[in-house]
C-alpha cells in the first residue's frame, strides 16, 4: 500500500538547517529506499513560488502564492509499505532527525493513503 506524506513546518528557527540534518536526511532516504519502502521524495519551495487554481461558483481562477491561511508544505514523500504504521514509522524517523539536529524546529506530517488495488479488493464482497 502506498502513502503520500506531506510535511508542514509549524515553527522554523532563525538559524538555517544545519548541514548535519541534510546529511542525515539523505542517509535516511537511502535506508528507506534500500528497504524497498521509499519511492520518491523531494523538498518543496515556499508557496510564494507557486500558484493555486480554484473552481468556485462555476468560476475558474488562478492566484499566485503565498497561501497565507495555511501552513507551508515543505516536502513530500511517497512510500510503498505493508501498513499505515510503517509509513508513520518512516515519517517519525524523519521528524526525529529534525528534533535531534535542528533544535527548535516544529512540524507535522500528514500520512495519506493512496488508493490502491488492496482498497479495491476490500470494497468487493469476497466469494
Amino acid at each position, binding site marked *: *500500500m502506498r502513502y503520500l506524506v506531506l510535511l508542514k513546518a509549524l515553527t522554523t528557527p532563525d538559524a538555517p538547517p544545519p548541514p548535519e540534518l541534510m546529511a542525515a536526511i539523505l542517509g535516511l532516504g537511502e535506508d528507506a*529506499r*534500500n*528497504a*524497498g*519502502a521509499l*519511492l*520518491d521524495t523531494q523538498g518543496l519551495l515556499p508557496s510564494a513560488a507557486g500558484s493555486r487554481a480554484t473552481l468556485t461558483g462555476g468560476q475558474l481562477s488562478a492566484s499566485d502564492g503565498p497561501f497565507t491561511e495555511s501552513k507551508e508544505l515543505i516536502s513530500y514523500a511517497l512510500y*510503498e*509499505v*505493508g*501498513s*499505515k*504504521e*510503517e509509513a*508513520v*514509522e*518512516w515519517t517519525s524517523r524523519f521528524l*526525529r532527525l529534525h528534533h535531534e539536529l535542528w533544535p527548535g524546529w516544529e512540524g507535522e506530517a500528514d500520512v495519506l493513503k493512496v488508493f*490502491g*488495488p*488492496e482498497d*479495491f*479488493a476490500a470494497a*468487493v*464482497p*469476497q*466469494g
Partner: protein
Amino acid sequence: MSATAAAVEAVWRIEAGRLVGALARRTGDFAAAEDLAQDALEVALRQWPRDGIPDHPASWLMATAQHLAVDRYRREQNLGSKLTVLAADQLARGPAQADPMSDLADELDTSVRDDLLRLVFTACHPALSTDSQVALILRTLGGLQTRDIARAFLTSETTMGQRISRAKRTLAEADAPFALPSTTELPDRLTAVLGVIYLIFNEGYSAAAGEDWTRPALCQEALRLGRVLVGLLPEHAEAHGLVALMELQASRLLARTGPGGEPVLLADQDRRRWDHLLIARGLAALHRAEDLGGGPLTVQAAIAACHARAGSVEDTDWPRVVALYTVLAHLRPSPVVLLNRAVAIGMAEGPARGLAEVEHLRAEPALAGYPQLPAVRATFLQQLGDHQQARHEFERAAATTGNGAERRLYLRQAREAGQPSSSRPGGWRLDAVSGTPVVDSEDAAPLTPLPRP
C-alpha cells in the same frame, strides 16, 4: 491488534532482516538467531506499549536479543552451544556499560549488506522445499509474522508454524552455514532466490487457489523483497530483470479487477488506470538489466514492457512479443512459454496460425490440468467460427482452474461462445484477447506451471 502493537510490528518489519542477519552472523546459527529475534519482538510487544517505542529501536532490539542470549546461556549452561559466542561477547561488555547503544548501532551498520545477503541465501537454501524457502524469506527478510504468511497462503497459522520450525530443523540437519555461496555455487543459488521471490509475486498476481483473482498484498511483498535485493546486488542483471518484471506487472493490478471483483483481461483493461509510476520504474529497471547482460527474467520483463508501452492491444508490437518468447523458449524451455508464444503468434499472424501452435502442445504432460491450454484453444476456435468446440473448451478450462473468479470468467465465456461475438469495432484481435486470460498472465506465467496448493 492494538494500535501500539501494530506500531511495534511496523518497526519489526523494518528491522527484522538486519537484526536476524546480525544475530545469525554472530552465533553462526540461523535458527537460534531467528528464535532470539522473535523473543526480542515478544519483549518489545510487552514493553513498548507501556514505555513507548524507543528512539533507536534497532539497537534496543539487538541489545534485548543479546540479553536473552545471556539468559538462555545461563539457564542452559551449555558450553557447546553456539549461543555461547554471543553470550560471552555480551558478558565481556558488562551489564552496566554506559552506552551500549552506540557500539551496537555501529555494528549494525558495518556489514548490513553482507548479513542480509547471507540471510537471503540461507532462507533459500537448496536443502529446503520451495514452500519452506518462501516462508523463511517472508519471515526473516520480509519481517512478516507467521499468521500473516499463513493468511497470504490460505493455510492455518499452525500449519505455517510447523512448516517454519521444520525448515529451521532442516537447515540445522543439513549443517547449512550462515554464509555466502561460493563463486561456483552463486549463479544457481541466485537463480533460486529470484525464483522464490517471483513465486511469491505470482501467487499474488494469479492467485492460483481460492476465490480472489489477485492478492495484491503478496505482490507488494514480493516487489519489496525484489527492491531490497537489487540494493544488495546492484551489479546483477537478473535481479534488475526480476524487479522490472514485477514493477511492470504490478502496474496493471488496479486495472485487472472489475467493479464486482471479476477479472478484466488485458484487452479490456482501461490502460489509463495502469500505474504509470510503476511502469516508469519497471522500464528503468529493464534498461539496467539489459545493460548488465539480461537473462530469462529480463526477457520476460521485455515482454511485459511491450504491453506497458502499447496504447492498446492493436498497437502492441506482437511480432516482437513472438520473437522474445522464442528467445525465452531457448533460454528456459517450458511448455508454458510455448503456450504463451502460441497466443502471441495468434495475435501477430491470425488465429489459424495460433491454433496450429497450440495443437503441438496438447500432448504435453506438463500442461495437463493447466486451465489456460483449453482457454487458449477455445479462443482461437471461437475466432475461427467453431462455437461448439469453443464452448466445450471453455467449460474444460472452467473445470480445471482452482481459482473461483477465473472459473466464473470461463463459464461466462462458455455461455457466450455460441453468440455473435463482437459488437465492438476492432475485429478479431480484440475478441482474441478478451477470451484469453493467458494474454494477461502470459508474462506472469512462471517458467514452470505454478504449484496448485
